[in-house]
C-alpha cells in the first residue's frame, strides 16, 4: 500500500471530502434538473442533503420531493420569526404549507387577485395541511374606496344591503376545502386586521353569499373535525343554513361559534345539531342566547350522549334557562365541562344545580362566575359539595357567596382534586409495575 503524505504538516486526510460527500453536494446543487436522483437516495442520505438545499428552489420541485426535516425548518425560520412547531404536530413541513396557504388566503383580494395563485399551490400542499387558521379575510377594494369617499353613500349602501351583499363576498373556500383532503381543523374569522380609520361594520361580518359558499364547501369537506367561526357577526338567519349543512356531517366533533349573534333561533338550530350530530365540544359563548334558546339546548343536552364540553359564557339564559340546563344534567352522563358564567342567574338556579350535583358523577368542571348566586345559593352549593366527589373545579368568583361557604366549597374541591390526583398516581404506578 502506498501512503502519500503532503509536505504541509497541517494537511490530513480529514480535509479531503469523501466521494459520497461530493456526490451529495452535486445532487443538492442540481436537484431541480435531476429529481429522480434524489428520489433514489436512502432516507438518511436525504436527511444529510437537506441542509445543503437552496431555499430559493421553486415550491413545485420541493413540495413532494423533500421529506419533512431540516429543509422545511430552514424555510419556516426564514419566513417567520416565531415558529412553534408543537402547534403543528411537530412537523415543519406541515407548518410551512399551512402557514403558506393561510398567508395566501389572508392576502387574497377578491376580484383582484387571480385565483390561479391559490390553485397553483393547492395540489402541492393538499397532502400536508391538516388545519387552516384564517385570521382575516379581505373584501374587494372597490368597496372601501366607495365607503371612504362619502358618508352619504353609506346610507344608500345600508338600504341596499341585499344588493351589496350580492356584490360583496369574501374569499370562496369551496375549491380549497374540496382539495384539502386531510383538513381536520378550520378556523375562520371574518374580519380585517389593522384596518385603522377605514373601519366599517361591513368589514367585520359574514355575508349571505359567504354563508352559501361555506355551506357548499362544508358539504364537500368530509374530513373536517373542528370548525371555528368567531367574531363574524353570524346572526340567526345566517346561522341556520350553516348548521343545517353540518347536521349530517360525518366527522365534525367540535363547533365554536363564540362572539357571534346567533340568539335564540340560532341556539335552537344548535340544539338540533346537538341531537342529530356527534359533537363533543360546543362553544357558543357571547351569543345573546336567552331563556328559550337555553331551554332548547337543555332539551338537546338531556338526550345527548356525546357532548363533553359546553360553554355558554356571557349569554342571558337566566334562572329559567339555568334551571333547565341543570335539570338536563340529571339525565346526562357525558358532560364534563360546563361554563355558565355571566348568565344573570340567581340562587334559584344554584339550588337546583346543587341538587343535581349531589347525584351527578361525571361533571368535573363547573364555572358559575359572575352570577348573582347570593348566600342561599352558596349554602346550597356548599352542602351539595359535601356529597360530591367528582367535581374538581368550581369557579364561584364574583357570585356574592359568603366566605365560609366559598371556603367550604373550595376545601371540598381541593379534597376532590387531591383524591383525583392520588388515583392518577396509583394508576400510573400500576401501569409502570405492569410494564
Amino acid at each position, binding site marked *: 500500500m502506498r501512503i502519500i503524505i503532503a509536505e504541509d504538516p497541517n494537511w490530513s486526510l480529514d480535509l479531503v471530502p469523501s466521494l459520497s460527500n461530493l456526490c451529495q453536494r452535486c445532487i443538492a446543487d442540481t436537484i431541480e434538473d435531476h429529481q429522480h436522483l434524489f428520489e433514489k437516495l436512502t432516507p438518511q442520505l436525504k436527511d444529510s442533503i437537506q441542509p445543503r438545499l437552496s431555499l430559493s428552489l421553486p415550491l413545485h420541485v420541493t413540495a413532494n420531493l423533500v421529506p419533512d426535516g431540516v429543509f422545511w425548518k430552514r424555510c419556516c425560520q426564514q419566513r417567520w420569526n416565531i415558529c412553534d412547531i408543537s402547534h403543528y404536530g411537530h412537523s415543519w413541513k406541515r407548518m410551512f404549507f399551512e402557514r403558506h396557504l393561510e398567508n395566501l388566503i389572508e392576502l387574497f383580494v377578491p376580484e383582484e387577485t387571480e385565483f390561479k395563485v391559490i390553485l397553483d399551490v393547492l395540489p402541492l400542499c393538499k397532502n400536508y395541511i391538516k388545519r387552516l387558521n384564517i385570521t382575516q379575510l379581505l373584501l374587494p377594494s372597490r368597496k372601501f374606496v366607495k365607503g371612504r369617499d362619502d358618508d352619504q353613500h353609506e346610507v344608500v349602501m345600508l338600504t341596499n344591503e341585499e344588493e351589496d351583499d350580492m356584490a360583496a363576498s369574501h374569499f370562496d373556500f369551496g375549491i380549497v376545502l374540496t382539495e384539502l383532503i386531510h383538513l381536520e381543523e378550520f378556523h375562520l374569522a371574518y374580519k380585517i386586521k389593522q384596518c385603522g380609520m377605514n373601519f366599517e361594520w361591513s368589514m367585520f361580518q359574514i355575508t349571505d353569499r359567504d354563508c352559501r359558499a361555506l355551506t357548499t364547501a362544508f358539504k364537500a369537506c368530509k374530513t373536517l373535525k373542528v370548525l371555528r367561526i368567531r367574531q363574524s357577526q353570524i346572526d340567526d338567519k345566517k346561522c341556520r343554513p350553516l348548521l343545517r349543512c353540518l347536521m349530517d356531517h360525518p366527522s365534525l366533533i367540535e363547533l365554536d361559534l363564540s362572539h357571534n349573534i346567533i340568539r335564540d333561533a340560532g341556539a335552537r338550530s344548535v340544539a338540533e345539531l346537538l341531537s342529530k350530530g356527534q359533537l363533543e365540544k360546543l362553544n357558543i359563548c357571547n351569543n345573546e342566547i336567552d331563556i328559550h334558546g337555553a331551554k332548547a339546548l337543555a332539551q338537546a343536552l338531556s338526550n345527548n350522549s356525546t357532548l363533553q364540553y359546553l360553554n355558554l359564557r*356571557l349569554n342571558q339564559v337566566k334562572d329559567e334557562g339555568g334551571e333547565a340546563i341543570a335539570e338536563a344534567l340529571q339525565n346526562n352522563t357525558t358532560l364534563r365541562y360546563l361554563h355558565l358564567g355571566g348568565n*344573570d342567574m340567581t340562587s334559584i338556579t344554584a339550588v337546583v344545580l346543587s341538587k343535581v350535583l349531589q347525584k351527578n358523577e361525571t361533571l368535573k368542571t363547573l364555572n358559575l*362566575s*359572575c352570577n348573582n348566586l347570593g348566600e342561599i345559593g352558596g349554602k346550597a352549593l356548599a352542602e351539595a359539595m359535601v356529597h360530591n366527589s367528582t367535581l374538581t373545579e368550581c369557579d364561584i*368568583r364574583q357570585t356574592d357567596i359568603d366566605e365560609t361557604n366559598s371556603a367550604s366549597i373550595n376545601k371540598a374541591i381541593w379534597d376532590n*382534586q*387531591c383524591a383525583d*390526583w392520588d388515583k392518577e398516581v396509583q394508576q400510573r404506578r400500576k401501569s409502570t409495575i405492569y410494564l
Partner: protein
Amino acid sequence: MEGKEESKPREDQERESGQRIKLLQKDLSTLVTNTQIACDAKMVLQRRLRAKAQAKRLAVLENDSTSSQEKSDEILKGKSENFTNPKAISEDLQKALKKQQELYSAIIHDKKAIINDLLQALKFQDDNYASTLRKNTEEINVMIARMEDQIKLMTKVYREELAQIESRHRQEISILLTKDKEELDRELKRLWDEELERLNERKKKLEEYKREVHEIGQESNYVFNALDYERCSRILAQERQQKKNTNSNLPLKMKKHLYTEKQEVLLTTLKNIKGRINREAREIEKLKNIYIDHQKKFAKQSIALTDYTQHIEKHERIKNQVRHFAAADARRFEEVWLMIEEEVKHLAQRALAIDSVISQQLYGSPESQTDLNLLLLSSPFRPWKTRTEIVQTELQLVESPAESHVENLDTTGSTEEELVFTDSGPEWEDEKLNEEMQDELRELLCNEMDFLMEAKILKLLAPLVTEEQTGVKLGSILYTLGIDEKDLPKLTDFLVRYKDQQNELTGESHRASVTSTSLDLIHPNHVLCALKSFLEQQSFRSSSAQELSRLWLAHARDSSKDAAYWNSLGNIIPEERVKLWDSTLRTLKQYHTVLTDISELIKEQECLKKGNTGLRLKIDSYLKK
C-alpha cells in the same frame, strides 16, 4: 418492613410536593382567570346597564306613543265630529281647527322632546363609551404593570423557595447518605471479619492436609524405590549372561574380519594405481601439446629476435654517432670555454690596468697593478672528472676506518697496473670454475657494496628472494660503479689475482686453495680495495672518447661553481671602485665643460685681442696721419 416504613414518608413527600405544584399552578392560573372573570363581570354590568337604558327608552317611547295615540284619537274624534256635523259654524270649525293644530303641535313638541332626549342619551352614551374605553386602557396598563410586578415578585419568591427546598433536600440526602455509608461500613467490616476468620480456619486445615499428603508421599516413594532396585538387578543379570555368550565367539570373528579388510585395502590400492596411471598418461599428452605450442612460439620468437638484433645493431650505430658528436661537442665546448676565458681574462687585465692608471693619474696614489690570478678563483672547468672518480671519493669516505688497506692499495698501485695490463687478455680457460666464482663474486659484491645503493631500493627489495635480490642489487651496483655486465668475469679474475697479490705481499701463498673454495676467493674486507683498484684500471683502460662521452653524459658537469667563477671575473673591479669611477667621470665631465667654456672664452679673448691690435694699428695709423 423497614423498606415499607421508609417508602411511606417518601410517598407522602411526593404527594406533598405534587400538591404543592398543583397549588402553584392554580395560583398562577387564578391570576389570569381572575382578570377574565373581572372582564366578564364588567361585561355583565354593562349589559345590565344597557338593558336598563333600553328598557327606559322603551318605556319613554311607549308613553310617548300612548299619549300621541290619545291625542291623535282626540283629533280624529274632533275631526269626525266636525265632519259629521256639517251645520257647525265656521267659528266652531275654526276653533276645532285651532285645537287640532294645538294638539298637533303638542304631539310634535313631545316628539321633538323625545328625540332630543334620545339624542342626549346617545351623546351621553357615546361619551360614556369613550370614557369606558379610556378607562379600560388605563386599567389594562395598570393591570399589566401590576402583573409584571407580581410576576417578578413571585418569581423571586419562588426562586428563594426553590433554593430553600433544594438545600433542604440536599441536606436530607447528605444525611441519608452519611447514614447509609456508616451502615455500609459497619456491615462491610463485619463481613470482612467473618471472612477473615473463615480464611484462617481454612489455612490451618490446609496446612494439616499438606503435612498428611507429604507423609503419604514419602511412604509410597520408599516402596516404589525398592521395587525399582529389584527390577534393575534382574535386568543387569540378564545382560551379563548375554555378554558372556558373545565373548566366546569373538576371536574367530576378529580374524575373518581382518582378512576381509586387507583384501579390501589391496583392491582399493590397485584401483588407485590404475587411476593414477590413467591420469598420468593424460597429463603426458597434455604436456606434449604444451611442448608443441612452445615450439611454435619459439619459432615465432626467433624470427622476432632476428629483427631485434638488427634493431640493436642500428641502435649501436646511432649510439656511436651520438658519442662521437658528444665528444666533438665537449671538445668544442672546451675550446670555446678556454677562448672566452682568455678573452675575459684579457679584458679583466685591461680593466685592472685602466684602474691602476686612473688611480695613478687622478688620485695620485701610485698603486701597483694587482695580479689577476690573485683575484680570480680557480677555474672550475674540469671536463674529465668521471663517475669513477666520484665513486672513488665515496669509497674513500666510507673506507676511512680501514685506512691501512688504502695504504696498501697505494703501495700496490704500480703492481696492479702491471698486473692488469699483462693479464688483460683472455685469461679464463676454465669456464666452469669461472661461473661458480662469478656467482660467488656476485653475492659477495652484493653483500659488501650495499652502501652504494640507496636505502629506499634496499627497503623495496627486502621482501624478495635472496637470488632475485642479488640480481637486482648487482645490476644497480654495477651501474653505479660504471662496470659493464660483460666485464664481470674480468672483475672476478682481477679479484682472484688481487688476492694472490695480497697474499704474495703478506708472504702467504694460497693459490691452490683459491680455486677449490669460494670463500677463499677474496676476503670480504679486501673487496673494497680490490674494487677500487679494478675501477682505476678500468678508467685507464677505457679512456677512449666513447667512454668519456658516456660518462660525461651520464654525469652532467658541475655548473654550480661556474656562475661564481664568471661573477668573480665580472666583478674583478669592485663595486666601490666602479662608483668611484662614476663619480670621477662626473667630475671630469664637469671639468671638461668648464674647460670647453674656458677655451671658448680664450677664443673670444683672442678675437678681441685681434680687434684691439687692429684698432691699435688703425689708431696708430690715424695718429701717424
